[in-house]
């Protein structure tokens, strides 16, 4: 091997990812006195979190005082079709309000209620107005606030220690390609600076993964180039496990026209504020798609639905506010039945429902975006929308309280979209931003205390670093392979067509075959150009991550023979209570993805008794119901 320069750094905690979860974790680790590094593929403050629009769900009860953590917990479990890790849902519901209030002490400025508290808005799947928001740029507010909090900690360190970067440093435009282990313990991380192509090595006993999602494996997606499933793949390769990978959220309302903005989301608050979905015949079709489990909460006629906006206590909600998977499926069915728009979507109409002035006030950036990008004036004409790959529920299997990764590795933590379990089979809108804060803080804090109780610092082996260098340089040194862009397109085609929103056994088997072929082609990928800021090379390195994560999704989707949340099997259209008790767990066996079934943890009695028996009957097996009855009888005595 030729000589390669590698920059070395020593940290206590390395946080991979500078979105909401990563920044919150880093703040916590730094507050615990640990020397902390934050690593991000793009510039500081540009992570995906910036794009979240609707808001952050937290049961503060500012708008409807009847809201509390129990109600939020119930909504979350319901949304995830009871497949959620109940402990995570519980912690999330309990701790979100504190995490939001804390942001105000960092300088966040949320929209206010009349009495000066944080305003909260309605959102699909939430019983009460619950989403703290700032117009429709809540994610920007969240990330900027955390970014500025980090700056303020750096200013403290500068005053105290003379150096901004004494205890917390941001490595922007730096990509981690490999985690390094010492036995079963995390010892560090290896990556490259995008800018120079130079390599960088972090020696650290604890690593927090906060790398976000996997959406780039799909062509119509709201996700950016960063979302190549790096964290998922890093975790797998380090011996951790992934759960729920079959559950992908397709946002029901992404723009489908014009083509350049295909995939960009139209926030749910358009529907929360009165927008309705219509097919090409002008029919408000959502009334035809209210599933039985939701009949009690959703209106079955337009008059009642329309009254709800003014008087939510005495009317049932409009079906446009059903959970996302239901809306996405409904749109899909309408389009398949030939009642879609020319571009293959449906109409989302707010223009005929609210005065132009009101639309501009409530949805300023939506209005702006459509005007600038598509020359569509949403105050005058309806939008054309359709399902878009948006969010991955699945991710690193973690201990609910600490965020420590399950599997054989120690010292690895995960938080945010890259972790799994919290959202079960489907995430409610707004639950992600609060998830980032709650579990980011937990992961950062536990990573810090993990380093405290380590007797010795793990060591990095030279051989592992050499191997990492070699893997990273390989695409540049080959010139016989295919272009990474072609391979990415082929991968997107396989995933979009065969492992998309509606799945079938034959297609999934086919997909696995195609992915295996792709794997061989990806192993031989070659990138033109040099090491300095070379996007082709970067993509070539990301491809293997996208591929292994796609294999997990396809395998799990084939295995789960039911439809639930973000996983719809045409050949098994019903939800099956037996499958609710099963988590599908992926791990790596050498190079190959191994899939195992694992039982879901059982909900504690005081939590399960928050639900009506009638509701539970839709989800639980007879056996579980009998247990529940015994429990209520016990309590009745």
């Amino acid at each position: 091997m030729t000589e390669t320069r590698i920059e070395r750094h020593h940290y206590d905690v390395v946080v991979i990812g500078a979105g909401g979860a990563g920044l919150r974790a880093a703040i916590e680790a730094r507050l615990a006195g640990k020397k902390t590094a934050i690593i991000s593929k793009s510039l500081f403050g540009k992570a995906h979190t910036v794009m979240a629009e609707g808001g952050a769900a937290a049961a503060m009860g500012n708008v409807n005082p009847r809201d509390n953590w129990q109600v939020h917990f119930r909504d979350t479990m319901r949304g995830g079709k009871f497949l959620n890790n109940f402990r995570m849902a519980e912690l999330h519901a309990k701790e979100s309000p504190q995490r939001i209030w804390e942001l105000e002490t960092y300088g966040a400025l949320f929209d206010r209620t009349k009495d000066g508290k944080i305003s909260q808005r309605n959102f699909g799947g939430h019983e009460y107005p619950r989403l703290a928001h700032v117009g429709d740029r809540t994610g920007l507010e969240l990330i900027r606030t955390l970014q500025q909090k980090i700056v303020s900690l750096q200013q403290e360190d500068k005053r105290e220690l003379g150096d901004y970067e004494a205890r917390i440093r941001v490595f922007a435009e730096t990509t981690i390609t490999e985690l390094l282990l010492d036995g079963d313990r995390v010892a560090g991380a290896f990556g490259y600076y995008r800018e120079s192509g130079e390599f960088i090595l972090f020696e650290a006993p604890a690593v927090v993964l906060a790398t976000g999602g996997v959406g780039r494996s799909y062509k119509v997606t709201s996700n950016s180039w960063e979302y190549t499933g790096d964290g998922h793949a890093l975790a797998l390769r380090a011996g951790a496990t992934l759960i729920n990978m079959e559950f992908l959220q397709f946002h029901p309302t992404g723009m489908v026209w014009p083509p350049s903005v295909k995939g960009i989301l139209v926030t749910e608050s358009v529907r929360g504020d009165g927008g309705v979905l219509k097919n090409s015949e002008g029919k408000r079709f959502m009334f035809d798609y209210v599933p039985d489990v939701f009949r009690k909460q959703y209106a079955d006629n337009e008059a009642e639905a329309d009254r709800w906006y003014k008087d939510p206590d005495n009317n049932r909600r409009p079906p446009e506010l059903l959970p996302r998977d239901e809306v996405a499926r409904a749109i899909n069915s309408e389009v398949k039945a030939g009642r879609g728009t020319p571009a293959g979507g449906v109409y989302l109409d707010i223009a005929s429902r609210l005065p132009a002035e009101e639309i501009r006030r409530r949805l300023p950036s939506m209005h702006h975006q459509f005007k600038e990008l598509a020359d569509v004036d949403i105050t005058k004409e309806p939008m054309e929308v359709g399902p878009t790959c948006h969010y991955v529920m699945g991710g690193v299997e973690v201990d609910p309280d600490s965020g420590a990764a399950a599997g054989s590795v120690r010292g690895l933590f995960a938080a945010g979209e890259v972790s799994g379990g919290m959202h079960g089979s489907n995430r409610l809108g707004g639950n992600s931003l609060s998830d980032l804060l709650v579990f980011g803080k937990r992961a950062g804090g536990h990573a810090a205390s993990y380093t405290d109780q380590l007797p010795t610092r793990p060591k990095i082996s030279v051989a592992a670093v050499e191997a990492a260098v070699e893997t990273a340089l390989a695409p540049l040194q080959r010139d016989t392979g295919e272009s990474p862009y072609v391979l990415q397109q082929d991968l997107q085609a396989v995933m979009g067509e065969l492992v998309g929103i509606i799945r079938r056994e034959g297609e999934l088997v086919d997909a696995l075959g195609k992915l295996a072929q792709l794997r061989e082609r990806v192993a031989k990928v070659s990138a033109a150009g040099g090491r300095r800021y070379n996007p082709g090379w970067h993509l070539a390195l990301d491809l293997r991550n996208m591929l292994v994560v796609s294999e997990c999704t396809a395998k799990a989707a084939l295995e789960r023979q039911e439809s639930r949340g973000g996983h719809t099997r045409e050949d098994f259209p019903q939800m099956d209570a037996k499958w609710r008790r099963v988590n599908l767990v992926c791990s790596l066996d050498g190079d190959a993805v191994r899939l195992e079934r694992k039982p879901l943890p059982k909900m504690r009695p005081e939590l399960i008794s928050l639900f009506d028996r009638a509701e539970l009957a839709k989800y639980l097996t007879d056996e579980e119901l009998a247990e529940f009855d015994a429990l209520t009888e016990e309590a009745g005595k």
Partner: protein
Amino acid sequence: MGTKRQFRIWRGDESGGDLQDYAVEVNEGEVVLDVIHRLQATDAPDLACRWNCKAGKCGSCSMEINGKPRLSCMTRMSTFEDDETVTVTPLRTFPVIRDLVTDVSFNYEKARETPAFAPPADVAPGEYRMQQVDVERSQEFRKCIECYLCQNVCHVIRDHEENKPAFSGPRFFIRAAELDMHPLDAKTDRKEYAQSEMGLGFCNITKCCTEVCPEHIKITDNGIIPMKERVVDRRYDPLVWLGSKIFRRGQVPQTSVTSEHHSGAGSAQSGVHSHAGGSHDARSEAQAQKGVNWHRQVPHPTAPPLDANGKLPLTELTFDKAAAPSPFGDDVTFPLPPEHLNFAHPQQDQPKH
């Protein structure tokens, strides 16, 4: 289907580069960033450019398109004539890394120097109460997506590398304004700090920054001007000045901005102001304080010449002077007449009066 369109894209790195011609297919409804992505997937796989959201929300994809600073993901191809050649170059104010990617670390350094939000000491989390009307002013500035187009276009640093240390730029003036207008921020010297440490004085309100802001933030009208006015008010208001002299005895009297402002231990440095923007040398400033002619009227700078649209010509090429307009105002000639100087020689004796 699409048509072929002509593009000229700057390729190179810090050692130099040039515009290269490409003919690319363009489909209906596409934006410039789509075209760049198509080039990456075809003729130029290693063409470097930043992007994330492709929706005008992250501020990554800033570049200069036909000489105008723009977000490439928000620049529709339909805004150009069919036979027009579209020229794409990197932001000019920041050093090139490669192709369309520039080193914007200047902005992160300035961000780090700007004092953070100071939470009120006696309000617990969850107890913050603010009215919507009161937060809206700051919220306007918090819309900033940090695309740095305003920084790129501001002539104070665009053509004057040497101003960079003393000048934070419009993005950070609105950060200061945002905190100044924050109903609960406990720090009270945001404006003074902007004047003395961030180089607010360099800004001669050309409004180029407001002009390019993709978020339509009224950087000058709502941010910079209110801050300047308040600082100026205090500087010229004899009552305020008297007040400060009477009530703040024992402190070095200060030329300008310090009336109610109290910045504690660091005051020798942070409270002072020289008319050419902030000086970072505390000692020479303190010296200058002694030799000040307090009653001198500082002439208002006149704005530099504007073009037919009422805008400042953006580049030296199209500008009628050899360099960008003087931050001191174009009516000031050098050397300055001695009576206009607020300068004290380090070795000079006690001032005459």
